[in-house]
C-alpha cells in the first residue's frame, strides 16, 4: 500500500491488516505512556482546505502517539489566501520535509492529484463528496471490536447519501468485509449514479429498521446544500430521524453510529446520542488507533519494499 486514497478496490486482507494493527494501537493508547517511538524523525503534514475538528486532531494525535512530527497547514492564515495553488502548497510542504501528507479538500480527486505531484505517501482525509477512507476504516474497526466481525452484519446508512463521502467509503469497506449495506434516503438525497454499488437502496426507513444490526446516521450537511434535498427539516426528522419510537423497533443488540459532528435533534434525538448502544465516542477513540495503523503501514513498512 503506497497511498490511502479510497476504499474502493482495497482488498479484504489489507483492511484486516490495518484493523489488526489498530487493535495493537488501542492497547498503546491505553497505557500510562500512550506513545511509542516508531516514527521518530518522520514528519506528517496535514493539509486541510475544509473545516475539520476531529479528523485533523485525530490524525495529529495519531502522528504524535507514534512520535512523528506534525506540520499543520491552515489555508485561512497562509499563502493559499494569497492564491497559492494546491500543487505549490504540496510541493512546498514536501520541500520542508513532509514524509506523508493528509489532504482534505472540497474537490473530489484532490488527494489523488496530490499523490501524482509528490513522491511521498498521501492519505485522503476527505475529498468533496467522494471518499473518506480512514472514516470507513475506523467505522469497520469499531464494528469489528463490537461484533467480532462484519460478516453478515446488516448496516443501514441513513441520510444525505448523495453528498456523503463517509457513505461512499463505508459502502465499499463494509461490503468487502462481508456486511450487507442498505442505503436509506429520500430520492432527492440519493446519489444519481449507484450502478454497481454493492448495496441496496430504499426510501423507507421504517421498512428496514427492524432488520438492521447497525444504523449509521449521516449528518445533514447544510454546508453542502443538504437543505435543498427535502422540503423541510421537520419532515426529514419525521421520516428519517432516529427517535425513541424508532429506536425501540431496532434489534435489541443493534447499535447506532454517527461520523460526527452530530445535529442533535435532527438525525438523532438528543438523548439517544448518549445511549450506551450509541458507539459515537467509541468511533472517535478508535479513529486515533485506526489512523495510527494507516500512518504506520504507509511510513514504517511499505509492503512492496524488501
Amino acid at each position, binding site marked *: 500500500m503506497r497511498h490511502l486514497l479510497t476504499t474502493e478496490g482495497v482488498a479484504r486482507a489489507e483492511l484486516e*491488516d490495518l484493523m*489488526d494493527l489498530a487493535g*495493537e494501537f488501542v492497547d498503546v493508547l491505553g*497505557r500510562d505512556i500512550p506513545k*511509542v*517511538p*516508531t516514527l521518530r524523525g518522520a514528519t506528517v503534514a496535514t493539509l486541510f482546505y475544509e473545516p475539520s475538528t476531529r479528523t485533523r486532531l485525530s490524525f495529529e494525535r495519531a502522528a504524535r502517539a507514534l512520535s512523528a512530527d506534525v506540520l499543520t497547514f491552515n489555508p485561512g492564515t497562509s499563502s493559499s489566501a494569497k492564491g497559492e495553488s494546491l500543487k505549490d502548497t504540496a510541493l512546498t510542504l514536501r520541500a520542508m520535509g513532509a514524509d506523508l501528507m493528509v489532504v482534505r479538500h472540497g474537490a473530489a480527486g484532490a488527494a489523488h492529484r496530490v499523490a501524482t505531484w509528490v513522491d511521498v505517501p498521501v492519505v485522503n482525509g476527505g475529498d468533496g463528496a467522494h471518499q473518506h477512507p480512514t472514516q470507513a476504516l475506523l467505522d469497520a474497526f469499531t464494528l469489528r471490536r463490537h461484533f467480532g466481525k462484519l460478516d453478515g452484519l446488516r448496516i443501514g446508512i441513513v441520510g444525505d447519501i448523495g453528498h456523503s463521502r463517509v457513505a461512499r467509503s463505508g459502502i465499499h469497506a463494509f461490503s468487502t468485509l462481508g456486511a450487507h449495506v442498505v442505503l436509506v434516503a429520500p430520492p432527492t438525497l440519493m446519489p444519481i449514479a449507484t450502478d454497481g454499488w454493492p448495496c441496496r437502496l430504499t426510501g423507507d426507513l421504517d421498512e428496514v429498521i427492524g432488520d438492521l444490526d447497525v444504523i449509521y446516521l449521516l449528518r445533514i450537511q447544510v454546508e453542502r446544500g443538504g437543505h435543498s434535498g427535502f422540503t423541510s427539516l421537520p419532515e426529514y426528522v419525521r421520516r428519517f430521524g432516529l427517535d425513541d419510537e424508532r429506536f425501540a423497533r431496532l434489534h435489541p443488540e443493534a447499535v447506532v453510529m454517527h461520523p460526527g459532528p452530530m445535529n442533535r435533534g435532527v438525525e438523532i434525538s438528543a438523548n439517544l446520542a448518549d445511549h450506551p448502544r450509541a458507539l459515537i465516542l467509541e468511533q472517535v477513540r478508535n479513529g486515533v488507533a485506526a489512523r495510527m495503523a494507516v500512518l*504506520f503501514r504507509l511510513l*514504517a513498512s511499505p509492503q512492496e519494499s524488501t
Partner: protein
Amino acid sequence: MTSTDGAVIDAADVHRAIRRIAHEIVERHHGAEDVVLVGIHTRGVTLAHAIAESIAEIDGLELPVGELDIGLYRDDLDRRAGTRLSRTSIPVDIGGRPVVLVDDVLYTGRTVRAALDALSDLGRASAVQLAVLVDRGHRQLPIRPDFVGKNLPTGPGQRVAVRLEPIDGTQGVWIMDS
C-alpha cells in the same frame, strides 16, 4: 526439518538448557517470588512459558509470564517489509519488580535494545535481566546476557534456527549457511 538430524543442540539438550536457566533464575533471586518473565515474540514467549513451567516444578512458584512485541521500537523499520505486530501484554504491573527478558537467540543486541525501550514504557522494573537459549556472538551494542543456554560461535554469514516443540512440532538448534 522433521528430525533433529544435524542439530547443534538437540531436543533433549534444549530441554536441559531451559531447566538449567530456570534453576539459575531461582538461585540468583534467592527464590524468584517477585520475578516476572517477559518473552520477546515469537519464540521468546514460548521459551518464557517453558522456563516458568520448569520453575514451577523446581520451586512450586507460579511466575507471571508476559509477552512483548518490539515492532514499534525497532530502528530498522524502513527495511522490514510488511511488519506485523503481535500482542504485547504483561499480566502484572512490572513496577518495582525484577524482570527477566527471554529470547531465543542473542546476536547483534538490537532486538534486546528495542525490548528494553518497550519495557521501560510499560513500567519501571527494579532490574532487568536477559535469558537467551543461544548466544551466537557478534554484538553491535553493549548488551550481555545474564542466563545463557549455550554459546554458539558462528560467522556473520550464517543463520541460527531455533525450533521449539509448541510452535514448530520439532525442537533443536541448527546452524545454516545462508
